[in-house]
């Protein structure tokens, strides 16, 4: 349990000093908060503002409060949005399934090598994620080290390919986000008091029952954090779709990026970004309430 506040120690401070101390947090927090406000809150507002404008990049954009931008963007890209949500759901599910046993084993049976295992797990993610993704496109190429060998051995037909399919995109996103799934799971599993599991066993629970009735529920905060930290980046990802995907795999991130940076269709791009942000916030709030956490920021 976090100790947010230290008890104020009794002292005989002079009133001026006490006033100065009361202002201390504002002085400390102000620079960062100002930066966050100017470069985070205001840009968000700027984005909302842009999303309601009309025009094109050659002649300029004017503020027209055109809410139809949102309906236009949704109707044109509805299927891509759904596809991104579906992909994110699959990625989160797969990542959880893959990561949970690993986190569980390291937390419970890692012993003094826990940190070594964690280190080995996280080591590959020292290289930039663009390079990792590009490396996968290299590995999964039609006649590369995996499929080339399999094709020469005759195990696969010559026309087999993985790149350009939804499978490749989902595999890429999952790979890139696995650390974000493993770590929260591990942290919360590691904190579980072993004696609770022992107690369950003392009460004649089988190993499986001990797991499902004790460990799993106690790791819910970790699962919650893992789901959030995995699904949110997954919805907005576009690098994997760009490098590993093909037609029919475009995600909403690709559309936003292309509309914004290439076509400079700012109203549509920002409208889509806000829709994405809205989906994420609503989803996170619903999920948090489902799990009963008081404040989402606690995770």
């Amino acid at each position: 349990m976090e100790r947010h506040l230290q008890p104020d120690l009794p002292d005989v401070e002079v009133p001026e000093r006490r006033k100065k101390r009361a202002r201390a947090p504002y002085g400390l927090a102000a620079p960062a908060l100002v930066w966050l406000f100017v470069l985070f809150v205001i840009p968000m507002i700027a984005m909302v503002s842009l999303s309601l404008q009309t025009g094109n990049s050659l002649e300029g954009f004017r503020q027209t409060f055109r809410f139809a931008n949102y309906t236009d963007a949704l109707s044109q890209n509805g299927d891509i949005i759904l596809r991104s949500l579906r992909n994110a759901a699959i990625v989160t599910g797969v990542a959880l399934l893959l990561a949970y046993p690993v986190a569980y084993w390291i937390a419970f049976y890692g012993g003094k090598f826990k940190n070594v295992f964690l280190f080995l797990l996280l080591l590959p993610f020292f290289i930039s994620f663009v390079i990792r993704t590009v490396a996968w496109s290299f590995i999964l190429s039609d006649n590369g080290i995996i499929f080339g060998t399999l094709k020469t051995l005759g195990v696969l037909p010559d026309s087999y390919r993985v790149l350009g399919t939804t499978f490749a995109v989902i595999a890429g996103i999952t790979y890139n986000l696995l650390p974000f799934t493993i770590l929260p799971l591990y942290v919360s599993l590691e904190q579980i008091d072993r004696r609770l599991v022992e107690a369950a066993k003392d009460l004649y629970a089988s190993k499986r029952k001990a797991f499902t009735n004790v460990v799993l529920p106690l790791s819910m905060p970790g699962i919650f954090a893992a789901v959030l930290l995995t699904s949110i980046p997954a919805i907005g990802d576009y690098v994997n779709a760009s490098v590993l995907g093909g037609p029919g795999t475009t995600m909403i991130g690709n559309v936003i990026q292309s509309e914004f940076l290439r076509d400079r269709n700012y109203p549509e791009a920002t409208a889509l970004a806000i829709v994405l942000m809205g989906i994420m916030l609503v989803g996170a709030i619903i999920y948090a309430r489902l799990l009963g956490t008081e404040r989402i920021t606690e995770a």
Partner: protein
Amino acid sequence: MNDRSPWTDPSWIRGMTQRRMSRRDLIRNAAVGAGAIGISSILAACGVSGEAQTTGPTAGEEGSAQWWADMKAQGPGDHINFTNWPAYIDRDFSVDGPGSRPSLYAFTQSTGIDVTYRADINSNEDFYAAIRPALESGQDTGHDIIVMSNFQELSEMIALGYLIELDPELHPNFDQYAGKNFVDPVFDPGNKYTMAWQSGITGIGYNTNYVDGPITSLDDLLDPKYAGHMAMFNNSPDAGCSAMIHLGIAPETSTPDDWQKAAEYLQKFNDSGGLRGWMDQSYLTAIENEDLWITMAWSGDILNDKLYFPEYATFEFTIPDAGAVIFIDNGCIPNKAANPVGAEMLMDWYYDPKYAAMLTEWNAYFTPVPDGGEIVQADAAAAKGANKEVLQTIASSPYVFPTTEFAQKLHNYRVLEGDEVQTWNDIFNPIFLT
């Protein structure tokens, strides 16, 4: 956990809908919100200004006669950044270093100016998007010569004044030797900003290891045999105009209804499930890697691979029976280039028939210099040994030296003006972003 369904469990419903914010929180946050709205209304009032520029350079500005006089007085500088498409300049792999590009090396030896050659352009859209921020803010893009196809991007750059007007006195070779098809083009009247580099045909390239011909139409790409190993170009001029030609429509005079029909045809490729991707220049690496077996292709890319690289000898290039579209790639100088004098000298260098011939003999594209073409024919006739077959193939290829009969099948892009640009984009862009 009890067995009651959550939807009937009153405590669950209460938990889900419980208000987490007290009234005090609401008021507090409202104050912050009001402040934010105040700022936002200021922002909302601002729009984004447009960039269109309609007049040329005034006296003393970049591109004006005065300015060119000053630049020439300073001399041509000692370095040029030349950025081009891949497979577009002659290569000699037996030599390392600058000598591996003979025509460019000849330039350096003749003028003493070093050239940094980068084959970094893979798509007009992406390259333009990459240099646009520098152009918008009036900074040096880092390139002295760039090569842009006759697509929207080039038209936009000219309209926005992002290219330096060429000095009429610095291109004597162009004046003397440029072919009439390349002088005063529709997209750059009077060649104020561009000089054609090479020109080519957008057709179909395929690997005979996997594909049995004859390939006669774009429909052949939809053959299920090639599913997953077939690609089309992701730029709307190539894809759109090729589709129109396939449907029997001449792109030059097409109407928005025609564009709609072409878009529906292109959508078939999306629906077929066999499309590997909408690609840019990266199709060439893909077909070399055998990820692609059959694809829309640019003539010289395939011919160059086929003739000069033994491992790609099985490549073939062809055009559909219905015809194909021609593109023209143009050298131009972006604003604030570090060495505009040297840049224009280099562009003009390639209008010397000797060097134009060297280019075409390697990259098998249309040369804008007819005399250069004649040199290629002469070289082919006089060649001996290994080179002989290669040069003769090039000299007799209709894709490099089209006969008048063959030229009947070749079309130009649709020139878009004003609102047509938006209509065209609205029709074609969604196809590439599925």
